[in-house]
């Protein structure tokens, strides 16, 4: 298994932290993992994305230039990352915020209303975890349990009730993919 | 036979290379006496500069490090932070301290590094042959100011003690001279105090010594001493600019 993933969205949507969580989950699963952030010049707002690799063997370059999966959280990221996606790759689209759809027909597209699901759980900010849950269901790259373990390490200062909510978001995203 | 005068034990027996009439040798001796009297000789680590005192590492009996031009206070910082029990000094001339090493001296004072700086101000670059220094007086001739220092072209001399006195971390600043026996005695007291401060953990201490350079001033030794008194002292008044040793 070698999964190169790009997660992209607005700054503040949690795409950077979702990437760290995914990489940490890979480590929990005794796999090799890497994470590389990419910010715009702005400290807040702007667009952000990160590269994550989870691999049974060694990780080649941490720069994922032709990803196996892209997780698209906002509209501007769709045209930017659609061309990079590998033939036969997976695209997860946050359909709450993105109206457009990819033109490519050689990829698998999964639409998940991440923000809507997150709002129903009571917190818009955890849409990133809904997307991550959907990714896990679709690829099995890591397990839900390993993400839950990873949360404790990545969100060290999170309160227990927040961690509980995070888990719910992850599960909801997982369940949203049929 | 009774010995009534001898070289301080803190200096080596090596003959110094300084020109006749130069102030460096006097200051070295005063430092050596201070180390002996404070009984710190085995704890002292010195930083020698680039300039006329480049061989100072051979004259002091303590361990010495020879640094790059102007970087003495940074090097002394590295030594002191690694060996807090050592008594660390940086010995610097005016080009070294007030020109190329301005950032290092200012920030050593800002951090109030517990080190002692001995600053030899002779208003000229000595080793390189008499070029204009940041402390060269207005009108003073130098090889790079052949018509004398002109403020319109080269600005005015810089007074380091007065400048550093603005910095909270600078705890002891005194300007002395070595032009007369009386002033040599005062210089000795100041130098000793600057090292005593370090022993007591006071923080950044600097003694500026107005020193004669007969060679590059094209003067006889008496003329050079007269130059210190009549030309340098009006620009660089002697005295204590800061003394927070007790606080």
């Amino acid at each position, binding site marked *: 298994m070698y999964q190169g993933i*790009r997660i*992209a969205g607005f700054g503040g949507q949690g795409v950077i932290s979702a990437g*760290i969580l995914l*990489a*940490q989950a890979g*480590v929990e699963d005794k796999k*090799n*993992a*890497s*994470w*590389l*952030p*990419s*910010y*715009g*010049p702005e400290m807040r707002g*702007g667009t*952000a*994305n990160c*590269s994550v690799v989870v691999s049974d063997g060694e*990780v*080649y*370059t*941490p*720069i994922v*230039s*032709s990803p196996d999966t892209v997780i698209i959280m906002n509209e501007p990221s769709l045209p*930017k990352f659609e061309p*990079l996606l590998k033939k036969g790759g997976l695209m997860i689209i946050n359909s709450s915020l993105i109206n457009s759809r990819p033109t490519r027909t050689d990829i698998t597209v999964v639409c998940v209303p991440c923000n809507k699901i997150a709002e129903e759980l009571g917190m818009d900010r955890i849409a990133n975890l809904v997307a991550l849950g959907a990714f896990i269901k679709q690829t099995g790259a890591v397990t839900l349990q390993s993400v839950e373990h990873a949360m404790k390490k990545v969100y060290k200062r999170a309160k227990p009730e927040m961690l509980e909510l995070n888990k719910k978001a992850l599960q909801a995203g997982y369940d949203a993919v049929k | 036979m009774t010995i009534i005068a001898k070289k301080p034990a803190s200096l080596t027996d090596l003959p110094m290379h300084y020109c006749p009439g130069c102030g460096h040798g006097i200051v070295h001796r005063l430092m050596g006496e201070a180390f002996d009297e404070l009984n710190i000789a*085995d704890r002292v*680590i010195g930083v*020698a500069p680039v300039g006329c005192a*480049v061989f100072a*590492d*051979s004259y002091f*009996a*303590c*361990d*010495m*490090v*020879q*640094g*790059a031009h102007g*970087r003495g206070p*940074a*090097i*002394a*910082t*590295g*030594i002191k*932070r*690694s*060996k807090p*029990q*050592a008594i660390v000094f940086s010995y610097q001339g005016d080009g070294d301290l007030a020109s190329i090493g301005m*950032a*290092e001296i*200012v*920030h050593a004072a*800002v951090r109030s590094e517990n080190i002692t700086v001995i600053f030899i101000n002779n208003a000229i670059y000595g080793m390189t042959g008499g070029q204009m220094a940041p402390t060269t007086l207005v009108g003073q001739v130098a090889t790079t100011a052949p018509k004398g220092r002109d403020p319109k072209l080269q600005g005015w001399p810089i007074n380091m003690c007065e400048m550093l006195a603005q910095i909270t971390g600078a705890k002891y600043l005194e300007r002395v001279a070595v032009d007369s026996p009386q002033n040599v005695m005062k210089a000795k007291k100041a130098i000793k105090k600057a090292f005593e401060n370090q022993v007591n953990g006071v923080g950044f201490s600097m003694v500026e010594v107005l020193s004669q350079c007969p060679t590059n001033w094209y003067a006889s030794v008496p003329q050079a001493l007269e130059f210190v008194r009549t030309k340098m002292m009006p620009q660089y008044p002697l005295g204590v600019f800061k003394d927070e040793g007790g606080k």
Partner: protein
Amino acid sequence: MTEKTLRKGNEALAEGAIRAGVRFFAGYPITPQNEVPEYMSAHMAEAGGAFVQAESEVAAINMVYGAASTGTRSMTSSSSPGVSLKQEGITYLASADLPCLIVNVMRGGPGLGSISGSQGDYFQATRGGGNGDYHVIVLAPNSVEELGNFPKLGFELAEKYRMPCMILADGILGQMMESMSFNFDPIDPNQLGKFDWAVDIHKNGRKKNNVFSYKGDNLIADVVERAKRYGLIEKTEARWEEREAEGCDVLLVAYGLSSRACLEAVNKAKEEGLKVGLFRPITLWPFPSKRLAELAGKAKAVLTVEQSLGQLVQDVKLAINGKTPVYLNAYPAGGQPDGNTILTAVRSILSGGKEGLFDLQEHADGFNYECKRDTSLGMQGDLKGGK
């Protein structure tokens, strides 16, 4: 050996340095190495060492000069423009025969350049960088794990040969997170032997120690003595890694991050039935010339892949000495290699094409060389000012 954890490159480096017994660190803010001094400021005191945020890179390296004079394991880190400023201190450290560790997390240049990862300081690192006849040992990690474990190796080499050691990383290695483990237990510097040359407090009346750089009449003898050490290092301390390098048709040569893109290319090539191998220098000085020449002698061609404009390729050509044709696939000033573009260059070599191959003189004659840059990597974008 510790359990594998996910760590940021710069933080693994800083933690690895503290574990290796570093007890003095001086630095100055510059992107993309800021996590190193930040980590040191938080953890050095509890390790019993000293951290100083210096007033400049020049001051920082001179603080290291002072601390290294005392025999303390001392280091500084910076990024390209800052390392240029440190060259004064590095040449003094070399001339005073002091061991220390200097880290360069490279960014694009020249000048202020950009904050993207780059390998543009290869010449500066491997040729000395400052004035005079000298070398520093240069280690080139290609993973977070190596970033964390090389400080120990660096100090062992620096102290054995009494000279500065540099870790040459790049912005992406510094900024990425990766699973890694430390392959050594923390070192208590008090348990390390004392150096008889170090300046220190000395009660027992030992001969005074002078750490000095001005050698006067002794300079020739001094430089020639040092050359003997350099020769010994070249003979015995070269380090490298080989992948599928025996019997390949095209041998890739790359260090640091570029070597990982090459690994991707090696594996993709295998799927296509192409025989492509990789030779990765781990020490850039000493350069592993001998082994490279042996392997290159058996290959049809050698392709150097570097994030600079033909720097590494010069050492490759010197090593191979004309026996095998050497080509260049270059990504200067913040460009990043990936497996596909490297494979394009490999195919060009095998088919006599030009795509992906850079040649300075052909470029002058109008040959258009496309340097790919992943514009979706916004970090490579352009933080104004950059410091």
